[in-house]
């Protein structure tokens, strides 16, 4: 009985958290149309989230694209289908791995830093100070970060897709003996515009979720250094899980015929 009660409590807790986070998301979005706006904060968030994430995005996707090519070649060889490497790398990167890997890297890099920064601001009364200076933290801190992440993530995903395919190409041409021209032609011919559109749409959704979780848990932070640590951990976990769950739902929505 007490076991069931414990499960019930956890379920209720999760539901309450989802409800609160949803309200937080709606509140954030509502500030899109309510001035004042802080373009300077938005620009700095675009730099932080977009530009400075490029190295990490490039590194993760190039290795994954390369590994993917090796795996598909080895697996395909079992039923003499080695030739499909360019097509499968392209579709695997663009439809799934590009958005998901970039999303998870953003959860690690951006969600954590947003959560830690906002939580520290909360703990050191900087959020209170903002309010007393007639500045709404949702407009000044949350909206710029969430908007920036939603806008730049499709670009990061596009870059990740290209670099991932390039990783596959480098391995395909240099290790597996593919002809360079054929590899590129097969990739380009096979990809549909809808593959790319859905890939970028996934990116936007993941960016929104990643920044939102950082802000949400940061604003909710408990007191002291422990509060900051907890907020950061919860934000990264929640962002990662939400990104993977959203990926499943979006894949089901876009591709299940």
């Amino acid at each position, binding site marked *: 009985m007490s076991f069931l009660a414990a499960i019930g409590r956890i379920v209720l807790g999760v539901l309450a958290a989802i409800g609160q986070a949803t309200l937080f998301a709606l509140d954030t979005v509502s500030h899109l149309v309510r001035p*004042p706006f802080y373009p300077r904060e938005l620009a700095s968030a675009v730099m932080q989230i977009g530009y400075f994430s490029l190295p990490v995005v490039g590194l993760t996707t190039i290795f994954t694209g390369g590994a993917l090519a090796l795996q598909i070649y080895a697996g395909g060889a079992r039923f003499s289908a080695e030739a499909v490497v360019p097509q499968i790398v392209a579709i695997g990167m663009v439809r799934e791995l590009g958005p998901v890997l970039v999303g998870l890297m953003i959860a690690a890099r951006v969600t954590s830093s947003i959560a830690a920064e906002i939580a520290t601001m909360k703990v*050191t009364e900087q959020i*209170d*100070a903002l*309010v*007393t*200076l*007639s500045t709404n933290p*949702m407009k000044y801190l949350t909206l710029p970060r969430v908007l920036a992440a939603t806008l730049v993530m499709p670009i990061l995903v596009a870059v990740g897709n290209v670099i991932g395919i390039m990783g596959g190409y480098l391995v395909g041409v240099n290790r597996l003996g593919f002809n360079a021209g054929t590899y590129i032609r097969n990739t380009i011919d096979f990809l549909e515009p809808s593959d790319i559109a859905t890939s970028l749409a996934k990116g936007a959704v993941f960016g929104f979720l990643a920044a939102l979780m950082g802000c949400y848990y940061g604003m909710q932070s408990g007191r002291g250094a422990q509060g900051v640590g907890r907020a950061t951990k919860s934000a990264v976990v929640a962002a990662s899980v939400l990104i993977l769950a959203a990926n499943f739902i979006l894949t089901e929505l876009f591709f299940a015929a």
Partner: protein
Amino acid sequence: MIELRDVHKSFGPKQVLRGVDLTIGRGKSMVIIGGSGTGKSVALKCILGLIPPDKGLITVDGDDVTRLRQGSAERDEFLARFGMLFQGGALFDSLTVWQNVAFRLLRGSLKKSKDEAREIAIEKLRRVGLTPDVAELFPAELSGGMQKRVGLARAIAAEPEIIFFDEPTTGLDPIMAGVINELIREIVVEMGATAMTITHDMTSVRAIADDVAMLHGGKIRWTGPVAEMDASGDPYVTQFISGSPEGPIETVR
């Protein structure tokens, strides 16, 4: 005029404020004393609406402040009349010192040109005893006492009608504390501002206060003009002023 009537606030099982009644007259300097952890900072934050009281009434010039909705235009207008020095300074560490001081002057209804805002910031820094060369530094590059003074400069930058100082002289050397005490007195006398100051420093109390209130056990234990403080006849106040370990205030709390 600021009035608190029967204000209660608990955090979980911990009752911090248990019915605070206090009146601060317009243009008066009220000093709140009381042991650390008795809820002085919480009381200030309740007035500013940063912490919602569980029960009770808080009015500023007759208007109920707890009714103001978070983020509403009325609340922004209300807050624009206030300046607040937070106990820990609460400087924005992503902004330079002068951008912190001029925060309110760089955006919103009190917006001024960048050069003008910077000039005002440097003037306010001078008033708290800081030279113009700190203006371009970041808060993390300053000592604790300097951060406090930057926080003070930020609180007074927009010349508010009502100013709250949470432990303005804690962590300062005695000479700098004297400068700050004088500054607070000046702001009240010259600008006609209403000030509410939290302090443990009895020299500060005597220098700043028109009226004194002592918070103890979640209530205002004693309040009156500073001249009557020494002859209050209240054993709690007497013990606090003398700093004696002997008396009704528990030393383990």
